[in-house]
């Protein structure tokens, strides 16, 4: 069969400084007018997740911010049809529908963590990562009732095709579904984890157009193109950016895309790079321009989490679903990579969608996975009487806990652990799906009450999006990204909320906190996505904080960040995953920079300049669409 879907696409333009550009939609002139925009105005609007605003964009650059009343609250996705603008918000979790001067809300008390939306006639489909479902509302039904649900592991994107079938992505199961919503179940599934044609690795945003399906294949750094009638892959757009900031057709962690009505342009959101690339569908395959090998840029991937304790450190490598172990007891300051374990698969010790790691006493590492809902404890204890060297046979899986089997007897939902922490006595697991922190012993076995039920601490009602936690001797600190706050929990189950660190004129307001860690001396370190910040505070009485250090600097030099995420206590300081720069940086608890490192690269002297590869200018692009086979 000859496929007519465009197998490749050509770079046209790049629109920079769109902070956390996570979603995009085309607004027609009719809708634009009803939104209060100038008459005749139409075009793309991009959602900047880190700033929480919608902004008009075009090939020539960034336009005006769309006024929204009331202001958006933790928005994560946008969609539009001729009549209405749909915005997914997470604080509280619901869907905002803007229809002319009228704003209504949908999904209150139904949605838990909505992440994507699509509309078709009176139907509105919402992907909810916490419910682990795609939920379909019908605006023509009584009370806008839910008329269909499909179960998944972590639904991430939704789109209707012209025939009204719902296509949706499951980022943790690495699949794409085609579902006739009047049929039961999730529908037909296409793909599995991998990078070959027909495979996906954490697919997210999805669009259907003219018989083709376009999927943001997030960890394969490409736009996968499927034939709508068969589900087969017809081609893919883009080439993996080898070092951060590369673009011009190289794609880095795509989140969402949208087409202009004539189909001649596709706008691709890359929130990781804070930009949108404009591509022209069609044309030849990209050529090898010789810029695939980085010169000085750091090229190792790191996921959002890191954890160090005593002699070892563990970090996530999401692209391969594996965990890297570092030795911290070498002759130099540099953490030395000594083993990698994991990889995709269904059995214990395999990680299709790894979410967190935690170093434990005794040179062990706990690993938790969203997809198979397992908590593994790995021994990674090298023979310290000899020089420690890289050894792939070093990690040994000691035990594994099936979290679904653990939660089932008490009627719990499928656990969705987003972070782990060791508090000195127990291993804690943050579970937004069950709204609790589960407690385990150092072997990864559930701690249990005398009734036999697994021990847990409930999360407070007002917590919006718990993403990471830190713990020390029974006290918990949870970062609430969408809520712009930290929550402090006590053994008695009481919680208090902090939205500002420090006091008076030496304070900083939290916007999108992500990582939290408690250092050896008790200092609290917090990373901030929206400002590329690292804040270190000392505790005062009654959970007050004294700001010791605050760094808010975007860039690629040392002591600058690009999307800082996980943070861990590290020796007598802290270590931050500088995810957008594919590296980690260590600091003292006074905020002093100590070193920058990644796999095979390590710097203890601050650099004034970092050379990156330069890409050639974008060639004039064809404006036609269609097949090129």
């Amino acid at each position: 069969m000859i496929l007519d879907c465009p197998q490749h696409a050509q770079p046209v333009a790049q629109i920079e400084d769109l902070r956390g550009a996570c979603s995009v939609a085309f607004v027609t002139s009719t809708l634009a007018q009803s939104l209060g925009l100038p008459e005749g105005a139409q075009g793309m609007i991009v959602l900047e997740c880190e700033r929480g605003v919608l902004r008009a964009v075009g090939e020539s650059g960034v336009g005006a911010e769309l006024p929204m009343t009331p202001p958006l609250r933790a928005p994560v996705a946008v969609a539009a049809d001729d009549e209405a603008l749909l915005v997914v918000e997470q604080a509280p979790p619901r869907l905002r529908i803007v229809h002319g001067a009228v704003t209504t809300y949908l999904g209150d008390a139904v949605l838990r963590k909505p992440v994507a939306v699509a509309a078709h006639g009176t139907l509105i489909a919402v992907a909810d990562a916490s419910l682990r479902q795609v939920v379909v509302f019908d605006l023509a039904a009584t009370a806008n009732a839910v008329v269909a649900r499909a179960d998944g592991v972590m639904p991430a994107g939704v789109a209707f095709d012209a025939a009204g079938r719902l296509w949706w992505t499951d980022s943790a199961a690495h699949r794409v579904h085609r579902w006739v919503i009047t049929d039961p179940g999730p529908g037909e599934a296409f793909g599995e984890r991998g990078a070959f044609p027909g495979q996906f690795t954490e697919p997210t945003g999805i669009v259907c157009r003219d018989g083709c399906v376009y999927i943001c294949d997030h960890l394969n750094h490409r736009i996968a193109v499927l034939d709508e009638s068969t589900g087969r892959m017809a081609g893919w757009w883009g080439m993996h950016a080898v070092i951060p900031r590369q673009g011009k057709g190289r794609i880095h962690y795509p989140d969402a895309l949208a087409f202009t009505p004539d189909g001649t342009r596709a706008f691709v959101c890359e929130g990781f790079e804070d930009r949108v690339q404009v591509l022209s569908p069609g044309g030849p395959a990209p050529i090898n321009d010789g810029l695939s090998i980085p010169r000085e840029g750091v090229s190792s991937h790191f996921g959002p989490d890191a954890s160090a304790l005593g002699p070892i450190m563990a970090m996530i490598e999401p692209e391969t679903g594996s965990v890297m172990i570092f030795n911290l007891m070498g002759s130099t300051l540099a953490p030395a990579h000594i083993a990698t374990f994991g990889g995709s698969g269904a059995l214990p010790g395999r990680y299709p969608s790894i979410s967190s790691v935690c170093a434990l006493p005794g040179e062990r590492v706990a690993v938790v996975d969203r997809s198979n809902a397992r908590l593994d404890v790995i021994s990674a204890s090298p023979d310290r009487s000899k020089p420690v060297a890289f050894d792939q046979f070093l990690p040994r899986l000691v035990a594994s806990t099936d979290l679904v089997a653990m939660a089932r007897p008490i009627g719990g939902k499928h656990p969705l652990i987003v972070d782990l922490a060791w508090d000195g006595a127990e291993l804690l697991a943050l579970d937004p799906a069950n709204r609790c922190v589960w407690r385990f012993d150092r072997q990864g076995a559930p701690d249990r009450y005398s009734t036999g039920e697994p021990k847990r601490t409930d999360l407070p009602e007002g917590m919006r999006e718990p993403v990471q936690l830190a713990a020390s001797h029974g006290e918990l600190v949870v970062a609430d990204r969408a809520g712009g706050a930290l929550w402090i929990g006590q053994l008695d189950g009481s919680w208090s909320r902090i939205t500002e660190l420090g006091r008076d004129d030496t304070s900083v307001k939290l916007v999108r906190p992500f990582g939290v860690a408690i250092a050896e001396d008790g200092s609290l370190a917090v990373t901030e996505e929206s400002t590329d910040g690292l804040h270190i505070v000392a505790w005062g009485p009654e959970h007050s904080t004294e700001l010791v250090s605050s760094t808010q600097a975007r860039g690629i030099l040392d002591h600058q960040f690009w999307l800082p995420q996980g943070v861990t206590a590290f020796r007598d300081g802290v270590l931050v995953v500088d995810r957008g720069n594919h590296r980690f940086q260590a600091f003292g608890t006074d905020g002093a920079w100590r070193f920058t490192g990644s796999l095979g690269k390590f710097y203890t002297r601050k650099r004034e300049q970092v050379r990156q590869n330069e890409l050639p200018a974008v060639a004039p692009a064809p404006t036609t669409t269609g097949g090129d086979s």
Partner: protein
Amino acid sequence: MTRSLRSTVLIMIGAAVLAFQACLPQPSESMWVRKAVTNDGLLTVWWRVVGERDELPESDPFDIEVRVDDASGGPADVALEMDAEMPHHGHGMNVRPVVERIGPGRFLVKGVLLHMSGRWEMAFDLGDPDGVRWRRAQCTVEAP
């Protein structure tokens, strides 16, 4: 080769032999000569290649019989999953073996395939009756 280098090589060979010893067929009157202990030390897995000679075939599927003992030496009440991988090469098997329970603490694993010669790690995952906790016993074999 200098004396010290030769000594180092001999020591390395000796260490490698010791490391593999737990998985190699060892002289015994028992039919169960291949052994792996769970990494928490609680359970013991004995296994053998089904057939007359207990030998790993060359790039052909084979079946293994598995016996799991608890700390007292009696049959352990566990579920079994079996896998194998080549850590140096970053891949596992191309097939998923079928596990069949054939008695208390006894299993037949059908369709194991070590498709490449070299060092493989066999993994036996043993689940408690309620399915919550799993333990791993693993050992290394040299596929012909």
